[in-house]
């Protein structure tokens, strides 16, 4: 009995200090953020509780509305682009090609590079190289980063350039779980090409598809580094992501309380997106 108690105590001792650390740097700031969201705190000085006013203001604030529209539009398009490209790339990299491991290794490089530095490099690419190429072809080249209409596409391209690497690797590991005899059985039934992919390959890698969807949507909703490096939210706030707006106005714009409310809303949206995705993909997996 004594021994048993000792064991229990050790397990508790291994858990509780780490749990306190987790509470102090995750749950506590989360609660504080929630509390600040009911205040008019500027980030300094004194503040008053203002009830739900910040939350009401969120829905009438044009800048906040735009940042949600941009971020969600951006996240959806980038998720689609990334998953289509990486599925094709994974199928190619999983087929019987030469230099297989070297090619796989090379295609993964963008994933290990820091997003901020990659963003700065692409900033130059969109500002100088692309317009110069258009000029050379007889057009009048301007930077798409300066266009309120197209700057967000540049961010899609840069994020996709990096994210494709990760998703491809996950799809490849999914494709490797598909046993060869599935294809052989399919070949007997005359399944080839698109038919084979649609009815045999894809259903078998749906778990990997869900991993990629969840990874993508969550990461893209939180986009920050690429915005800093490419547009700083511009031009005319057309590429201001939610994280960037919270950072910018909350930390130095005197809107600590208001942006805390924005962050709470953002948190709820992330949870809703994740839960919705997990339920939808969970159902799909069950059907199989």
């Amino acid at each position, binding site marked *: 009995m004594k021994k048993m108690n000792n064991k229990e105590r050790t397990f508790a001792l291994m858990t509780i200090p780490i749990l306190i650390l987790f509470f102090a740097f995750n749950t506590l700031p989360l609660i504080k953020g929630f509390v600040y969201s009911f205040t008019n705190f500027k980030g300094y000085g004194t503040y008053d509780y203002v009830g739900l006013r910040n939350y009401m203001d969120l829905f009438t604030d044009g800048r906040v509305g735009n940042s949600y529209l941009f971020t969600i539009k951006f996240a959806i398009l980038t998720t689609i682009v990334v998953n289509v490209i990486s599925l094709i790339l994974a199928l190619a990299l999983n087929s019987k090609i030469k230099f297989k491991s070297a090619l796989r290794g090379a295609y993964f490089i963008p994933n290990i590079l820091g997003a*901020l530095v990659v963003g700065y490099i692409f900033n130059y690419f969109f500002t100088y190289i692309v317009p110069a190429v258009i000029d050379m072809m007889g057009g009048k080249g301007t930077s798409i980063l300066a266009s309120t209409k197209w700057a967000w596409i540049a961010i899609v391209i840069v994020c996709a350039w990096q994210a494709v690497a*990760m998703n491809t690797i*996950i799809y490849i590991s999914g494709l490797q779980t598909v046993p060869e005899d599935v294809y052989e059985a399919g070949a007997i039934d005359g399944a080839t090409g698109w038919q084979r992919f649609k009815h045999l390959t894809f259903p078998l890698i749906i778990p990997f598809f869900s991993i990629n969807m969840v990874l993508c949507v969550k990461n893209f909703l939180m986009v920050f580094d690429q915005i800093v490096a490419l547009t700083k939210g511009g031009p005319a706030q057309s590429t201001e992501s939610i994280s960037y707006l919270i950072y910018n106005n909350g930390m130095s714009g005197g809107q600590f309380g208001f942006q805390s409310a924005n962050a709470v809303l953002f948190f709820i949206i992330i949870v809703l997106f994740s839960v919705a995705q997990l339920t939808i993909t969970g159902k799909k997996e069950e059907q199989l």
Partner: protein
Amino acid sequence: MEEKIKVKEKFNIPVTILLFLGLITIAFPLYMTIVIAFKQPSEMTNSISGILSLPKHWSFSNFAEAMRVTDFWRSLLNSVLITAVTVVLSVVLHSMIGYAVGRNKARKKWYNLVYMYVVSGMFVPFAILMMPLVKQTAQMGIANIFGVILCYVVFYMPMNLMLYSGYLVNIPIALEEAARIDGATTFRTFWKVIFPIMKPMHATVAVITALSVWNDVMTPLVIMSGSGINTLPLAQMSFQTQFGTNYNLAFASYLLALLPILIFYIVCQKQILNGVVNGAVK
């Protein structure tokens, strides 16, 4: 049968060629970075060929200047320190809580609650923690490298706890019982028996944590803002104004910032790929 195998072993040459062509999309930005980093501003005429041609002299002067301007060695040291300490602490602390929680959560409600509580931390975006954390670390006097490391150890805990306690399912409980019969305490059993067996998972955790920490900008940006302490990526941001329109200097600095991780990747490519896949798929 023999013939069938032979047919199968035939390489798909068109796909191989297409894949090599596709590599241009990856190689081009890197090529651009390298040639611009080695050139002098006078060589950068406004035409494409001026920008993208190979430099006339491969001079390292931009790199020397970039190192001086961005205090490269200091930033590199900070990045290495933050990454290394975070990885070590994560492997030790997260495997410890992973063991305690993983071994008990099936039997005890309390541990199951702890598991759910920590893992649900995965959904908390940094944006909501950011502002309170800045206040908190400042009040605690840890608005510095130490504070950043503590934040990371907490941020990666949900993911790592899930990985470790998931891996524990593969380790037979008989091993621990044997150790206990030999008179080892629970902690000794963890440290001498379980911790070494978890080695493959340590590799996965180390790779994922290291890559994320090394490339992260937001946490050090907000926690250490105003302290003048830079990490390697953060320095690229802090010195944007100093680079001005001297893109050659800027690109030399970018290349220096990318180089350590590129070298690391070339050396441990296999471990990194395995680690990343394990972490995502498990």
